[in-house]
């Protein structure tokens, strides 16, 4: 998704300064899981807007379908039947990229400019720069990016950056019939979440709360949860997501080395890509990456 002119604040594996002429407000999508009815209209809207089509799959004994994120399904509804003190609950969570303020994918990515973060907070993949190494997948604490078997590039939710740049909300938010997905500035969304949480507490959900995990600097996709104390109930939403130590080391303590490493990796990637094609690249790169450490 390299078409937009949103202001970029960070680019993967790049040391030159990012453009920052304009001011864009920080945005967020708030998913109110307590309002979601699992209708999957957002899944359909996502495919329609982004012109992706997953394969017509099979039933795996659950209602989730497609059963997992793919390079064509950038969002899926995850259905969890749990028994709480309130009895049976069917917790339905819209899964997809969380657009972390501190994105593990971007940090892990060795390909210059393949992962960018805009001033709005949106984390976007510029697939034309992607080398198909899959490091972003390892780097992501939410297990979101998916490598396409078709072109060996990695895909995920763009938070409809192409819509947002034109001043409209993401396709899923536009489509959601219950208003479970709302979109606006992060500030407004935090305020809205607070109201909703108040209402939920009144309704007897004493542990209702916001999911905006600090371990990744907060996210630009946030959830309102009935059981904010137990995010794992929602099909394994991580309680304290954080960027893996390897990635942190790579980008943090090893920073002086990193610049050199980046250059090596970049060059290595390019070399391998042209000689062996994308599929063999990742293993080799992995080795180089490990060597760096």
């Amino acid at each position, binding site marked *: 998704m390299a078409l937009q002119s949103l202001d970029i604040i960070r680019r993967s594996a790049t040391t030159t300064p990012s453009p920052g002429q304009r001011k864009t407000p920080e945005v967020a999508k708030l998913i109110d899981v307590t309002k979601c009815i699992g209708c999957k*209209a957002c899944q359909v809207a996502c495919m329609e807007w982004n012109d992706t*089509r997953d394969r*017509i*799959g099979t*039933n*795996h004994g659950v209602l989730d*379908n*497609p059963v997992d994120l793919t390079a064509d399904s950038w969002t899926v509804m995850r259905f969890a039947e749990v028994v709480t003190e309130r009895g*049976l609950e069917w917790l339905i969570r819209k899964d997809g990229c969380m657009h972390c303020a501190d994105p593990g994918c971007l940090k892990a990515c060795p390909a210059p400019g393949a992962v960018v973060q805009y001033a709005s907070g949106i984390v976007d993949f510029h697939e034309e720069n992607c080398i198909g190494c899959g490091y972003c997948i390892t780097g992501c604490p939410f297990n979101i990016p998916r490598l396409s078997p078709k072109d060996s590039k990695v895909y995920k939710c763009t938070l409809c950056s192409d819509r947002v740049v034109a001043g409209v909300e993401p396709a899923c938010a536009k489509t959601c019939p219950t208003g479970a997905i709302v979109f606006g500035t992060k500030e407004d969304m935090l305020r809205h979440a607070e109201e909703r949480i108040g209402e939920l507490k009144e309704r007897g959900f004493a542990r209702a709360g916001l999911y905006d995990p600090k371990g990744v600097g907060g996210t630009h996709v946030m959830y309102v949860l009935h059981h904010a104390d137990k995010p794992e109930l929602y099909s394994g939403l991580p309680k304290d997501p954080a960027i893996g130590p390897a990635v942190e080391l790579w980008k943090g303590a090893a920073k002086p080395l990193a610049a050199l490493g980046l250059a090596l990796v970049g060059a290595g990637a390019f070399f391998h890509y042209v000689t062996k094609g994308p599929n063999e690249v990742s293993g080799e790169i992995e080795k180089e990456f490990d060597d760096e450490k």
Partner: protein
Amino acid sequence: MTNHWVDIKNANVIIVMGGNAAEAHPCGFKWVTEAKAHNKATFIVVDPRFTRSASVADLYAPLRTGTDIAFLGGVINYLLSSDKIQHDYVKAYTNAPFIVAAGYGFDDGLFSGYDAAGRKYDKASWAYEMGLDGYARVDETLQHPRCVLQLLKTHYSRYTPEMVSAICGTPKETFLKVCEAIATTSVPNRTLTFMYALGWTQHSVGSQMIRTAAMVQLLLGNMGMAGGGMNALRGHSNIQGLTDLGLLSDLLPGYLTMPREQETDYQGYIDKRALKPLRPGQMSYWQNYAKFHVSLMKAWFGDAATRENNWCYDWLPKLDKVYDVLQVFELMHQGKLNGYFCQGFNPLAAFPHKAKIGAALAKLKYLVVIDPLATETSCFWENYGDLNDVNPATIQTEVIRLPSTCFAEENGSLTNSGRWLQWHYKGAEPPGEAKPDADIIAGIFLKLRELYQKEGGVFPDPILNLTWNYRIPRSPSAQELAMEYNGRAIADLPDPKDPTKVLVQKGQQLDGFAQLRDDGTTACGCWIYSGAWTEKGNMMARRDNSDPSGLGNTLGWAFAWPANRRILYNRASCDPSGKPWDPKRRLIGWDGSKWSGVDVPDFKPDVPPGDAMDPFIMLPEGVGRLFALDKMAEGPFPEHYEPFETPIDTNLLHPKVISNPAARVFKGDLEAFGKGTAFPYAATTYRLTEHFHFWTKHTGLAAIMQPEQFVEISEELAREKGIKVGDKVKVSSPRGFIKAVAVVTRRIRPLQVGGKTVHHVGIPLHWGFTGVARRGYLANILTPFVGDANTQTPEFKSFLVNIEKIS
């Protein structure tokens, strides 16, 4: 809907029962979300399955499929015995004080007048006691032992919480919690709304399930109120329009009714329908029946319809019986039909007992299918292995497919559940040879007329004289048809208040049905749609959503029938003295000279409060009926009868009368019903949010969302039968089998029914052997060939199956 979608937001308590609004009506469901967020509404779901609706409910109550009358009868008993009814409303606006004739009775499962051989009732005793003045007798003190309220108390006293729990399998405490929530709305300033759909209609006692809930609403004073009412959620975007326009075999447009065989006399036909008031000063709006009927005949037959020939009354078919779909396919199965036109529906998939439907179609000489899709019905003669195991060589039916447009490829209006006629514009050109349905029918009609003109025939009159004044005769436009439904003046219409003045000029569109006449000076194709396209233009295309009251009654948005009224019976939102029961929900009020407000008054506008006229003006007694007189096939009070296939093989209230004694069952079908011994599990079919009926399996995106057929069972049943998540299973009934993937879920739980464990098998119905989704079995392979005793809507929701793992 008596109310409308937006009005749901005004409710304090919302019950989804006999439906699954979140899943089947996700867009309308936003108003439930609104009511919860802004009205602090309590949301309750009662269903055999913990549905997507239940996932966002405050309270979920499980019940065994087909036992809703027992549940709601229990609610009535709770309300009466704990005195949680709105007394003033019940006394003034229901037939609670009316005295029932002495011959009426109910004993051991049967009402008075039962004819066992004919499986029907002589309903003469289901009547009011009439006074010498010709009016029904009432006892304002409500003490008379035969007044409706007392009979109601007695009738439902059997429906104790223990009995409800034993029949429905609902835990008693859960049932009582639902009762308590419902009872909070018996005060004037709180309302309850019922949202239901096919989960109530598709039972052999479906109409009575709906009636029971309506009675609850009357007792609570919730009819006519903003945020109240009985709200049927219609499935197809224009199915409301289908019934409004009379596309059921015993109806004419606007709920006028077809004459019966014995009704050979025109005046007799009218008199029977122009109901005389049963109370002094009452309105009985159907007294205007002749105006609607004559105007319809003028719209159809123009100058050929005259007073002398009784407006062509003799040309109307006279029914010897109701030709509902089950009846028609029964006759077809008996080889008594030559040809069948199937427009916009898919009987092989949509009707029960697929094998019988397929065998019936195979006996036709020809079958014409008018549809945008290659439906299963149009391929019924093709072999698809187990999915459609037929031998094409033995089927001689000639099948003609006429591809039609879908709604987005034509202009027109759709009538939504809230009775709003909303105009829409063509969004795309139809593909290939597809034509609008109106063009297809016009083509057939013109050819037929030509044949009659050339060759004559036994009875050519209705075809030769049918009005056909469309600009392009082979392509009537949506606008022309809509204007015809609205109606126009055939002669200058004098002003009734001042006959020297002309109210409507000859040739002009009418403002509404109040202007219709029975003297042949008006023509109107559907009286309830009158007002939709007036001299001012297309009212259905209006898009002013201003909402001055905040109650969501946007009178400038589209057109709602009747008369642009948004909430039916809204006179009942005010007390007899004219004050709104709840000032915060003021819909209409008396301004000193007339009724007016944010809705169109459902009342004679100039009749002041305190007058004898009561709010339910479509009924001759003017009040809501807790006692249904002779209007229902199986009794004036709803009674719990088991589904024809019941897992308990008895009726806990009256073991001698198990299932609906007045339901029509065809020869051979009764014997073929499954018994709990061979088919031990209660089954129910339903829809999923990802699909619409049998259509969307033809579209890629919907197929991606839910690609393959599955059935749902509880963890307990799965354990018993050795079935694991994702296993392939075979589900069978006496009528056939399907194979599907097993979804094992906690959302379906075993229920304790009369000391027995009852398991449910949930069967989503969206798959078939045409389309782009993975091929599957038509769920109606399994369902029984029996319907509701009043509407003949098939019993798709309750039947018996067995389930086995396929090894």
